């Protein structure tokens, strides 16, 4: 199932949740909507599911208008951020719900329903919890039951809202891997919303980065990390150093000091220089584009994170390998291995 979204606009009062969003999702894809809170990603997901309606714009599934149908007719599996399991029903009945509420004409008989629920519980590896109630499950178990329940209706599309948001770090990592392999197995077009870049980059085939109701960039995890399209994407994904620079005729200046860096021809005037923390190479004082004094150093496993006061006045944080120990008070030269300069 392909999904196509055209020029979607949605406001809540004076707040513009979606401000002209265009998106095409390919069949069988696992897509991540990534952005800070308030970026409109959940609103977009809810509109695709039919739980919210846009002010204007189009949504189509396989070329047919989805907005003409209600949530009930769309056959979209939706996994809620807080799971929304039916608390008064057992796990088994939760998963069976979608099968039991079908119109009488197409409803399966009890034996078929039981077999199907059993299969789904096996799929999420929780068949031993069938008689429990949601209140008796851990967060990770609830998450998987919510997924099994959504899959019971054989959805054409699977939508997940912050699927790992409410879980602790360890369970989250396990479930990420599990979701990837599950998607591989069932191969249904899936979209999940997250504010966690690591999650998006690790799980998805393609990542859509959103901010303030607009799409900033669509691309593979490598694309959005290696070649961010906008200043926002560079700042949001990966840990970046951001410096205000001045570009005049291809010369990049920090304050009054020209830096030994090249800018795109299209960029001129006040701009922003972005460098990833680990892309700042440390050399002896006087080498590289910047010079600065190490303020203090902390060690994080294989890297040391140093706070460096640049001679221009700004203070930045860099991640350097530990082969050469830095000490507070050292004066060092810094050379960005890779960098990007964005206008504005």
């Amino acid at each position: 199932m392909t999904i196509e979204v055209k020029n979607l606009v949605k406001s809540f009062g004076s707040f513009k949740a979606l401000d002209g969003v265009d998106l095409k999702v390919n069949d069988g894809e696992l897509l991540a909507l990534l952005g800070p809170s308030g970026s409109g990603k959940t609103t977009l997901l809810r509109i695709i599911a039919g739980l919210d309606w846009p002010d204007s714009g189009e949504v189509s599934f396989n070329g047919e208008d989805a907005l003409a149908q209600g949530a009930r007719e769309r056959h979209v599996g939706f996994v809620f951020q807080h799971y929304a399991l039916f608390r008064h029903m057992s796990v088994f009945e939760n998963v069976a719900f979608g099968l039991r509420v079908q119109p009488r004409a197409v409803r399966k008989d009890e034996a078929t329903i039981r077999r199907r629920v059993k299969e789904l519980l096996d799929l999420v590896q929780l068949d031993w919890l069938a008689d429990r109630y949601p209140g008796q499950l851990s967060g990770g178990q609830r998450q998987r039951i919510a997924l099994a329940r959504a899959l019971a209706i054989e959805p054409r599309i699977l939508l997940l809202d912050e699927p790992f948001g409410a879980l602790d770090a360890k369970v989250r990592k396990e479930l990420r891997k599990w979701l990837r392999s599950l998607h591989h197995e069932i191969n249904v077009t899936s979209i999940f919303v997250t504010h966690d870049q690591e999650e998006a980059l690790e799980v998805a085939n393609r990542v859509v980065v959103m901010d303030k109701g607009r799409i900033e960039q669509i691309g593979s995890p490598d694309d959005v990390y290696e070649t961010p399209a906008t200043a926002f994407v560079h700042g949001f994904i990966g840990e970046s150093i951001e410096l205000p620079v001045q570009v005049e005729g291809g010369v990049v200046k920090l304050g009054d000091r020209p830096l030994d860096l090249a800018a795109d021809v299209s960029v001129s005037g006040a701009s922003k220089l972005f460098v990833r923390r680990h892309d700042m190479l440390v050399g002896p004082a006087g080498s590289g584009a910047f010079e600065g004094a190490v303020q203090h150093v902390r060690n994080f496993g294989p890297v040391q994170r140093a706070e460096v006061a640049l001679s221009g006045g700004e203070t930045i944080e860099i991640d350097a390998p530990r082969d050469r120990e830095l000490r507070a008070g050292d004066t060092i030269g810094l050379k960005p291995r890779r960098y990007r300069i964005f206008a504005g």
Partner: protein
Amino acid sequence: MTMQIADGVSLAPPEATARAHKAAARNNLRTEPRAVRIAIITLAIAFLSMFVVLPLVLVFAQAFSRGILAYLAALAEPEALAAIKLTLVVAAISVSLNLVFGLVASWAIAKFEFTGKTFLITLIDLPFSVSPVISGLVFVLLFGAQGYFGGWLRDHDIQVLFAVPGIALATTFVTFPFVARALIPLMQEQGTQEEEAAISLGASGLQTFFRVTLPNIKWGVLYGVLLCNARAMGEFGAVSVVSGHIRGETNTMPLLVEILYNEYQFVAAFAIASLLAMLALITLIAKTILERHLDEGHDASDH
């Protein structure tokens, strides 16, 4: 006094009571001097005995003062039977109406955003803040012979005042807030996600209501209905204004108690009063049981 018992039923939400229990358990760790504790407990018990237990005992003592046969005979009087029947009918009508209104109102308030919502919430509490006598008078103004609809009603030969419809209307008005007040916080806390999940799984509106919404609020509904019923059966002021006190026809139990008492028929008056007192006791027990269920539901959803 007896007819007011049902009015005194606490409206504090069960969670508040649960919190109070937990707080009490913590406070046990702090030890006041033994004498102080005994004095405080004695004072509380003495007060409760004087103002709650003693009157309750007196009601039953008076009712049985001429023996059980006189008690039963008083209840078997046609006037008494008529009052009991009328009270049951009126309670049945007003509780069912308020069940429907309460569900609709709390659904609207908890699940939708609309302008005037705060106003509606305030409006729901109106019957609590208006004296029941005034509520009764409002219906006289509307449906009385000189009232707004009086002429029309007379032309169409419909009797509202001094008849069952008037009594049921007044009772419904006075007891309106109970179901809604029990359900609004419950439904607000539960939000709309389970309903959304049901709809995205293909459930129709009715299926969603009966399979998801109603099971989630059933203890709250019963709680509201229980309090609503207790108040409906015990209501005096509003009913007194609209009933017309026609003997054997428009006297509910509380009204009959007053009439019999004023006529010095103490056994008969207290016999009827004892029935209302029993209703209050049963209501209290049922309320305690329901609160336990509501607490459980609260804990289960507390993740």
